[in-house]
C-alpha cells in the first residue's frame, strides 16, 4: 500500500518543531508499524536527509521504549499493544497517518518523536522498591505463603512497562496509572507492608513535583494501556495514601 505520513520533526529540545509530510510506497500489510518507519528512514538516508528519530528497542512489546502518538492515539489504533506490535494491516492503501511524540509537560521532546521520560525514573527512585539488601540469607522464599489471588493481582499491576501511554493519552497528563501500578504491586504483597506508608507518600509527592496532572476518572489511560493495567490500581493508591495520611 501507499501512504502519506505527517510526522513531527524537531531538531532538539530548544528548537521549534513542525509537522512534515512524507510518502512511502509498497508497504506490506504484514509489516509492523516500526518496520514501515524503517522503510521511510532508509529512504531518507539514501536521499541524504536525516532520518526520523524515534525510540524503540525490543520490538516485542515489553521494553516500553516505543512511544508514538498515531492518529491521535497512544500506540495507534489497536488495543493491548505497543507501537512495535501494531501492524500495517490496521491501515488502508492511500491513508494519511499522523505521527506525533508523547505530549505532556513532564515529558519534554528530545528530538523528533523521542521524549524524555526521566520523570518516571525519579518517581520510582522516591519509593518504588522494598528495602532489602542482597545477602544470600534472606528467609526461604516459601516461608511466607501468599494467596494465589493476591500474587496474581500483584503480577497484573507489576506488568506495567513504563511506556507513558497513560500520561500521553490523559487530558490532564496524569501519571496516576503508572504510580498506582507500582504502589499496588507492593501493597498486595506482605513484603511491601513495612514501608507502605512512606512509599505511597513519597511517590505521590514526587509525581506532583514532576508536573503530572491529577486524575479525573475519565479512564482513557486504562483503555490505551498496552498491558491492561486497571483503574483499580489508582483507587488502591488513593486508599493507601489516605491510610498513610491518617497514621
Amino acid at each position, binding site marked *: 500500500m501507499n501512504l502519506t505520513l505527517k510526522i513531527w520533526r524537531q531538531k*532538539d529540545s530548544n528548537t521549534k518543531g513542525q509537522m512534515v509530510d512524507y510518502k512511502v510506497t509498497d508497504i*506490506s500489510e*504484514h509489516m*509492523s508499524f516500526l*518496520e514501515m518507519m*524503517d522503510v521511510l528512514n*532508509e529512504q*531518507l*538516508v*539514501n536521499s*541524504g536527509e*536525516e*532520518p526520523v528519530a524515534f525510540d*524503540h*528497542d*525490543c*520490538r*516485542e*512489546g*515489553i*521494553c516500553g*521504549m516505543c512511544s508514538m502518538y498515531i492518529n491521535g492515539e497512544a500506540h495507534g489504533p489497536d488495543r493491548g*499493544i505497543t507501537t512495535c*506490535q501494531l*501492524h500495517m*494491516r490496521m491501515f488502508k492503501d492511500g491513508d494519511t497517518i499522523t505521527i506525533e511524540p508523547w505530549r505532556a509537560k513532564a515529558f519534554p521532546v528530545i528530538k523528533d518523536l*523521542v521524549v*524524555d*521520560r*526521566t520523570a*518516571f*525514573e525519579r518517581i*520510582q527512585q*522516591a519509593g518504588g*522498591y*522494598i528495602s*532489602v*539488601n*542482597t545477602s*544470600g540469607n*534472606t*528467609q*526461604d*522464599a*516459601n516461608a511466607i*505463603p*501468599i*494467596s*494465589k489471588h493476591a*500474587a496474581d493481582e*500483584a*503480577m497484573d499491576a*507489576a*506488568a506495567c*512497562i*513504563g511506556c507513558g501511554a497513560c500520561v500521553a493519552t490523559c487530558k490532564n497528563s496524569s501519571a496516576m496509572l503508572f504510580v498506582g501500578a507500582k504502589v499496588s*504491586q507492593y501493597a498486595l*504483597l506482605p*513484603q*511491601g507492608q513495612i514501608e507502605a506508608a512512606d512509599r505511597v507518600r513519597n511517590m505521590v509527592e514526587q509525581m506532583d513535583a514532576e508536573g503530572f496532572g491529577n486524575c479525573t476518572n475519565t479512564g482513557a489511560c486504562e483503555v490505551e494501556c498496552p498491558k491492561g493495567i486497571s483503574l483499580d490500581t489508582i483507587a488502591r493508591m488513593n486508599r493507601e495514601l489516605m491510610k498513610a495520611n491518617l497514621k
Partner: protein
Amino acid sequence: MSVLNSKVPKGPIKDKWTTYKDKINLVNPANKRHIDIIVVGTGLAGGSAAATLAELGYNVKAFCYQDSPRRAHSIAAQGGINAAKNYQGDGDSTYRLFYDTVKGGDYRSREANVYRLAEVSTNIIDQCVAQGVPFARDYGGLLDNRSFGGVLVSRTFYAKGQTGQQLLLGAYSAMNRQIARGKIQMYNRHEMLDVVKVDGKARGIIARDLITGKIERHSAHAVVIASGGYGNVYFLSTNAMGSNATAAWKIHKKGAFFANPCYTQIHPTCIPRSGDYQSKLTLMSESLRNDGRIWVPKNMDDVMAIREGRKKPTDLSEDERDYYLERRYPAFGNLVPRDVASRAAKERCDAGYGVNATGEAVYLDFAAAIERYGKEQAKIHHIENPSKAKITELGEAIVEAKYGNLFQMYEKIVDQNPYKTPMMIYPAVHYTMGGVWVDYNLMTTIPGCYCIGEANFSDHGANRLGASALMQGLADGYFVLPYTIGDYLSDDIRTGPIPTDTKEFDDVEKEVNDRINFFMNNKGTKSVDYFHKKLGKIMWDKVGMSRNATGLKEAMVEIKAIREEFWKEVKVPGGANEMNPELEKAGRVADFLELGELFAKDALTREESCGGHFREESAEEDGPQKGEAKRNDKDFAFVSAWEYKGEPADAVLHKEELEFKDIELKQRSYK
C-alpha cells in the same frame, strides 16, 4: 603452558566456593567509600551487580544506552528461572542442576563455575521474593514451578510469561534505592565506546552521551562489562534492536580474550520470517513445548497443498502427520534441548517439508493439549458425556490461563488464531554462549576488567538450557561478582580517585573521536543497514545452524570483503554533536563486521559438533545415533580463547583445557 589461569580453587567441588569466600581479602566499609566501580549495561547481570556493589558501599557509575535501566533486553525473557529448590520433591538438588547444566552444555563449560551457579541458584529465588517479585503461586500460596527442555524435574520459577521483566524490575528497584541514596550515579542514554587502561589495569571508559553527542571520560578502580550477547551479528535475531557487542569487542581489542564465539543458541520456537523488510524475530517461550506438539506433514503432496492454500493443517489426520521429535527422541519428545529441536526442524525443512510459503516453518500444535485439559475439566466439573465443543471450550480456557499472553502476541503478529489452527514456528538466533573469557573470579585477561552475564562465556558451555540465562545473570550480579571483585579491590584502598586528565585518557578519547569523525565525513553511498543485512545473510547461511569447512572459509573471505566495502562506502547522515541513531548503529555494525569473522574462524577451528555448534563433517555415521552430532572429547575438550592481533583472521588461539572430575563425559542422548 597456557597463558590462561582459570584460578579455580582447589578442593572438592562442593566446598570450593565456600572455602574460597572464607579466604578472600575483604575491603572494610570505610574504605569502600573511596573506591569507584563502573558497570556497563543494566540488564539482570549489570543491574543486580550495580545495586549490590552500591549496597556494599562502593561508588557505582552505571551506564545503559536505553532511556532507563528497566528497558535492558533481559526484560524480554519469558519462560522462567531455574533454581535447585526441590519444592516439588521430584528429586532435584544442587548436584542435579549442576549435572543437567554441564550435560546440556555438551561438556564444554567449566565445572567449578557451573557448580557455583547451581549452589547460589536457591539464594536468587529467596532474594527476589524478598524484593517483591510476584512469582506464580499455587492455591496453597506456595511457589509454583514448570518444566523446561533438557531436564527431568520441574525447577523453573516463573511470573506468567514475563519472568525476565519481573526479575529485571526487581533488580531495577534495588538500583533505584541506591540511586536515591546517591550510591549509584546512573547514566541513561550513554554508550561505552572504549575502555581505558592505566599501567595495564582497566581504569575507566570513554562514553558518548547519546542525547548531546558529547564524549565523556569516566574513571574507576574497576570496570564491569555486562552488555549482553552478540546475537545481532546475524542482523535478524530475537535480541533488541540496540543489543550490540561494542563494549565486549572493545575490551577484546584492548587485551581481553574472546572465548568460543561460535557457540550460538538458535532457539527452536520463534515466529517465522515473513519478508525482506523484517527487522527482528520474535520468540515464543520454550514453555509452550510443555503442551504443544511439533509436526510437519508426512507426505509431500500435503506440504504442497498447504503451501498453496488447498489444504489446512487441521484437515490432516493423525497418521498423515510426522511428529518428528516424538519419533526421533521418544524419551524427551517435544522437550529435547534447544539445539536438538532446532536442528530437527531444519532437517525437516531442508528435506522440503516446511509448511509456509518460504518453506521455513513447522507446526506447534495445541489441539491435543486442549482436548486433554478439556476432558480433565469436564471430569472435575462433573459434566457427563461432554460434547466436543464443550471439551474444546473448557480446554481452551486452561491453555489461555497458561499461555494467554503468548497466544495473543502470536495472533497480533501473524493474524491467525493459534487456539484454532497450529502455530507456525522456526528457529532463530537467540543467545550467545560464547563471550569474553573470564576466570573463576569473573575477571577478564585485563586486570580490573570484569565481565558478567551473557557477555561472558563461562557457564553454559556449547548450549544453554532454558531458564538458565536469568539464573546466570542474577547469580553473577547478586552473589558472585560482589565477593570476587572485593578481593581485587583490596589492593586499591590507598589508590585514591583515578584522574582522567592523563595521557591514557587523551589517547583513547582521540581514537574514539577519530572514528566518529570518519563516519561523519565519509562520503559513502550505502546505509549502515545495507552492510548489516549483508553480514547477517552470510552468518545465517554459512555460520548458522549447521556449518562446514568450505562454507566457513568462504564466510571469512566474504565478511572481510564487506568490512572493507563498509569502510569505503558507508554513509552516516546527521551530526556528531546531537542525537544520531545512524551514527550509533554505524559503530556497532563496524564491530560486528570484525566479530563475525572471528566467529567463523572459531567455528572453522572447532572440527567437532557440540551443542549449538554443528559441523557437518562430525556426525554419527551409523548405529541408533546416526545423524546426531558427534563430539570429540579427545581433541576438543577445551575452551578456545582468542587473543586480538589486528585483523580477526590473525587472532591467536589459547586453549583452556577442561577437566571433568565430577561428571563422566558421555554422549548426550535424549532418545
